[in-house]
């Protein structure tokens, strides 16, 4: 019996559901004498700082307090890239609302807020530029004045790719479909906002940063680089983390300032971000627009694709992945799972006086999938084809396939998942119901979304983006303790995903122990091997792969000791049910017995084996595409523009599922965020840059009342692109859902000739489209 493939309940959950999980704020409460920080932030999107005045003697720290500190600057090594430097605290100019200018420290957060109110920052406000397209105008204000912008005003990345025969493809086309796709700004909205506790130990000179974060090792390196101190002086710990979704991947200015302040004051200082700060100035996401043209022949084959992509990356770069991640991923992966030979794309990053962007679950893919899937549906309607047929005609079904950009696509189930979704929905039955409803004046619609998600990619994929800091591999150290239990130390940094449970299952199978006997240690730079953390749907593939490799090494060592002890050949030893047995016999030795020998009677080990049972392995794969088909059924209320989700179906292929329940949980959460993207969440600013959605009264994540039951069916295509057979599944839910929802709304409103290409499709936007359509078809307002 194998543990892999079973929906084991997560080991992480009992503590969490009983309130025993320890998050940063809990750790801060448990420290004696913790001081609390609050940040003084810019009230305006752009301006020059004239002076910063604090009450005399107040513990107010500004850029001047930290003379040795460097700016934060992550780079891509490519000619079409302009590097942006971020000061830890703004000193001369402010470039986005909420930019940190000073830090105050007090005995409690309330007192820190009192003090922050008394700091007077005199800023001479200047004209901001908020919109990416407007920012490229030569007359627009330049966000980073004085920086050379050879590619145009505020253009910090301008990447292009084209195949030879694009123009010909468009000339040959029977139908050219042009779309203007817009995805507004969002916040990833982890339920726990950011937060950190910096504790400086004056005895050892070391500083420990306990932080809500996804990349503890990278964070430590970044802190050392920026503060110009040795990494040995720093320890980063991630306790329980209440969701991250990319928002806790990049290095926050606030954490750097906090560590610097703790070292300066020799103190323990907590900064627990509140929701207002989080919405205003943590990291924003999306804010992309695509001008898309697709060339189709009469039978619906996609002959060519031409795209102009603009990403509003806000005022600064994130660190370490840079703002390049959004436009470059969009450019590389736009064609998705559709066979295409002619492709031209221009993809730009534009800096504005908005909060900087960090990757958010799916990064560019929710938007590029929206673009491609809207293209397919719009083309189908124009060519009078069925949306399922046009997809079947264009989807890849032979592998390996190579995208026009050269990206290899390993085996998946694109057509199969689409067919399964059609069946799960009873599409024919739905179409009948839709007609009946139409006769009653009701608008029902169905929408599909087929996509592939590149997951579990290591160093080679990141290197293709020419990143100065190139992430990718993961290392796992395994040790069998004298009692026969196993400790796995990992560089990945799970924060809610259940990775510890899944890795335990995988290791249990390799080593013949029970999952409960495996302790997974993560999130502490003092006790885990260097690694990149948990993001980009990578942990099960890469940390899982490294765990498997390490387990193979450990198993070999266990077999060798057992063989020596039993006077058998290592090749004949099987590890199962806690013992090493000679195959086909009942002769064996228990794993605790072997472990005791290795640790406590090492003189009995076969020479020249070293004492102990500890191994390490690293895995650095090229990547594997998981895939899925999402389908949404909606009803649109024509009077209010409200969209009710009736059904949401997911046919997901994540390769080998180590724990199907965890896979399903990832899909549920992702789809919910995708629905948020499609219908609800939008950060809105006024023309002066003031954030109007500054609390959860106006920034609206959907709740259990708005999200329907998510019906998941599992398909498993095993490829050798991943040594465990597992593909990544962390982001897929968020990637596929928006397109399915917007396609369903467009299907529902097709009698009115409405195509919805902007998200979120809020009730007022949908109603506006209906009002316009009704006034053109009936010649007057209804």
């Amino acid at each position, binding site marked *: 019996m194998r543990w892999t493939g079973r929906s084991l309940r997560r080991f992480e959950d009992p503590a969490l559901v009983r309130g025993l999980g320890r998050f940063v704020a809990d750790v801060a409460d448990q420290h004696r004498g913790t001081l609390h920080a609050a940040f003084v932030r810019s009230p305006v999107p752009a301006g020059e700082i004239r002076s910063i005045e604090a009450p005399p003697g107040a513990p107010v720290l500004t850029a001047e307090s930290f003379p040795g500190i460097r700016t934060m600057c992550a780079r891509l090594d490519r000619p079409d890239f302009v590097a942006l430097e971020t000061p830890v605290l703004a000193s001369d100019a402010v470039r986005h609302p909420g930019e940190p200018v000073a830090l105050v420290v007090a005995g*409690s957060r*309330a007192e820190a807020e*009192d003090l922050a109110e008394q700091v007077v920052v005199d800023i001479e406000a200047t004209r901001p530029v908020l919109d990416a397209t407007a920012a490229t105008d030569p007359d627009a204000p330049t966000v980073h004045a004085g920086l050379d912008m050879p590619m145009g005003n505020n253009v910090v990345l301008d990447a292009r790719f084209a195949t030879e025969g694009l123009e010909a493809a468009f000339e040959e086309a029977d139908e050219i479909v042009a779309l203007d796709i817009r995805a507004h700004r969002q916040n990833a909205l982890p339920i726990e906002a950011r937060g950190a506790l910096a504790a400086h130990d004056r005895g050892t000179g070391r500083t420990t940063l306990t932080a809500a974060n996804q990349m503890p090792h990278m964070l430590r390196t970044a802190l050392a680089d920026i503060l110009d101190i040795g990494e040995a002086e720093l320890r980063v710990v991630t306790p329980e983390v209440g969701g991250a979704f990319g928002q806790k991947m990049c290095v926050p200015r606030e954490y750097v300032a906090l560590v610097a302040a703790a070292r300066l004051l020799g103190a323990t200082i907590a900064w627990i971000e*509140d929701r*207002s700060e989080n919405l205003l100035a943590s990291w924003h996401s999306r804010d992309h627009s695509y001008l898309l043209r697709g060339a189709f022949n009469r039978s619906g084959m996609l002959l060519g694709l031409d795209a102009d992509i603009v990403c509003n990356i806000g005022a600064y770069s994130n660190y370490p992945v840079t703002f390049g991640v959004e436009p470059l991923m969009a450019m590389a992966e736009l064609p998705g799972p559709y066979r295409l030979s002619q492709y031209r794309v221009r993809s730009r990053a534009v800096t504005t006086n908005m909060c900087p962007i960090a990757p958010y679950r799916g990064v560019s893919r929710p938007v590029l999938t929206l673009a491609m899937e809207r293209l397919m549906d719009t083309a189908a309607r124009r060519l009078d084809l069925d949306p399922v047929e046009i997809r079947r005609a264009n989807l890849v079904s032979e592998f390996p396939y190579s995208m026009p950009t050269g990206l290899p696509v390993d085996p998946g189930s694109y057509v199969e998942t689409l067919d399964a979704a059609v069946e799960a929905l009873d599409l024919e039955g739905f179409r009948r119901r839709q007609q009946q409803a139409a006769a009653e004046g009701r608008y029902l619609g169905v929408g599909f979304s087929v996509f592939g998600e590149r997951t579990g990619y290591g160093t080679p994929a990141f290197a293709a983006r020419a990143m100065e800091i190139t992430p990718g591999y993961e290392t796992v150290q395994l040790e069998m303790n004298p009692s026969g239990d196993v400790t796995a130390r990992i560089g990945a940094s799970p924060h809610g995903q259940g990775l510890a449970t899944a890795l335990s299952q995988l290791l249990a199978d390799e080593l013949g122990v029970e999952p409960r006997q495996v302790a997974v240690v993560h999130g502490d730079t003092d006790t885990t091997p260097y690694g990149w953390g948990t993001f980009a749907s990578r942990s099960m593939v890469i940390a899982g792969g490294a765990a498997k490799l390490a387990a193979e090494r450990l198993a070999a060592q266990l077999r060798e000791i057992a063989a020596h002890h039993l006077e058998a050949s290592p090749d004949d030893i099987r590890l199962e049910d806690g013992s090493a047995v000679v195959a086909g016999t009942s002769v064996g030795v228990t794993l605790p017995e072997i472990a005791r020998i290795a640790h406590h009677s090492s003189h009995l080990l076969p020479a020249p084996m070293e004492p102990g049972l500890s191994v390490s392995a690293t895995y650095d794969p090229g990547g594997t595409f998981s895939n899925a088909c999402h389908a949404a059924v909606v009803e649109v209320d024509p009077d209010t*523009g409200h969209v009710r989700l009736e059904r949401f179906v997911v046919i997901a292929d994540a390769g080998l599922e180590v724990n199907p329940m965890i896979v399903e949980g990832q899909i549920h959460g992702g789809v919910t965020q995708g629905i948020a993207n499609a219908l609800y969440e939008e950060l809105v600013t006024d023309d002066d840059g003031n954030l109007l*959605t500054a609390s959860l009264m*106006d920034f*609206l994540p959907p*709740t259990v009342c708005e999200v329907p039951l998510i019906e998941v069916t599992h398909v498993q295509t095993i490829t050798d692109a991943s040594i465990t057979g597992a593909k990544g599944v962390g982001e897929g839910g968020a990637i596929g859902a928006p397109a399915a929802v917007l396609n369903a709304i467009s299907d529902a409103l097709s009698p009115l000739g409405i195509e919805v290409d902007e998200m979120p499709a809020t009730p007022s936007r949908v109603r506006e489209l209906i009002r316009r359509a009704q006034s053109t078809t009936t010649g007057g307002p209804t």
Partner: protein
Amino acid sequence: MKPAAFEYHAPRTLEEALGLLHEHQDEAKVLAGGQSLVPAMNFRLARPAVLVDIAHVPGLDRIETNDPASVTVGARVRHLDLEHNTIAGPLGSLFAMTGRWVGHYPIRVRGTFGGSLAHADPAAEWCALASALDAELHCRSTSGSRTVGARDFFEQMAFTTCLEPDELLVGVRLPRLSDSCGVGMAEFARRWGDFAIVLAVTAVERDGDSIARARIALGGVAGGPVRASNAEAALAGRPATAGTVAEAAAAAAEEVDPTGDIHGSADYRRDLVRAMVTRALDQALA
């Protein structure tokens, strides 16, 4: 998101409460359910120096039903009690169908009827209900008491009433509705539990197949709750048909003068007024 420092009082009698309000005037705020005031304090949008918590003032949590012509709801009666209460007849139905739209369950457990009226959110359900029924609001201060009609209680500026800083709203008198009166309530919000973008509360007295009198109050279209008088006039004495309802809904959409915000333009709100008035009237006439 921590409140500025404040002084806290929990008076045990009405006199004591009124005395504290009198003493501190503008500096003081009444704390009822805290579901609007405390968030505002945490955002530091409100920074009262003194809080007068009325949780222990006796008598404010009663619903008086002895009078055959009216019901008086104490200021501290919780939203949930009105949603689940046993007020007989159409008035009770209207309270129940309206109450379930006020926020989420935990908010309805703590939030109070009087707090909602005193807070006067333009999209508050209770404010629209009070306006539709021409409620009478009893206000007390150390210098005496007065009764104000809903029309005069709500100012046309959001979150503004005629209450003086030292005045406490103690109870609200509402007319019982006749058994032949149909009631309706329709609301549009982005998510379940959100404040309404637009809402309509209706009470319609039938006279056989025609409408004797209709009351329609709207929320979310002005600084306070407003009566759709033209729509009401369009219904009075008319047959209870879909055509009449459509005319009244169109009149309501016409007579309001909403302003746009991030959740919808003025035109969008007009569209919603038409839809919500139609739905609330359909319910009342069903």
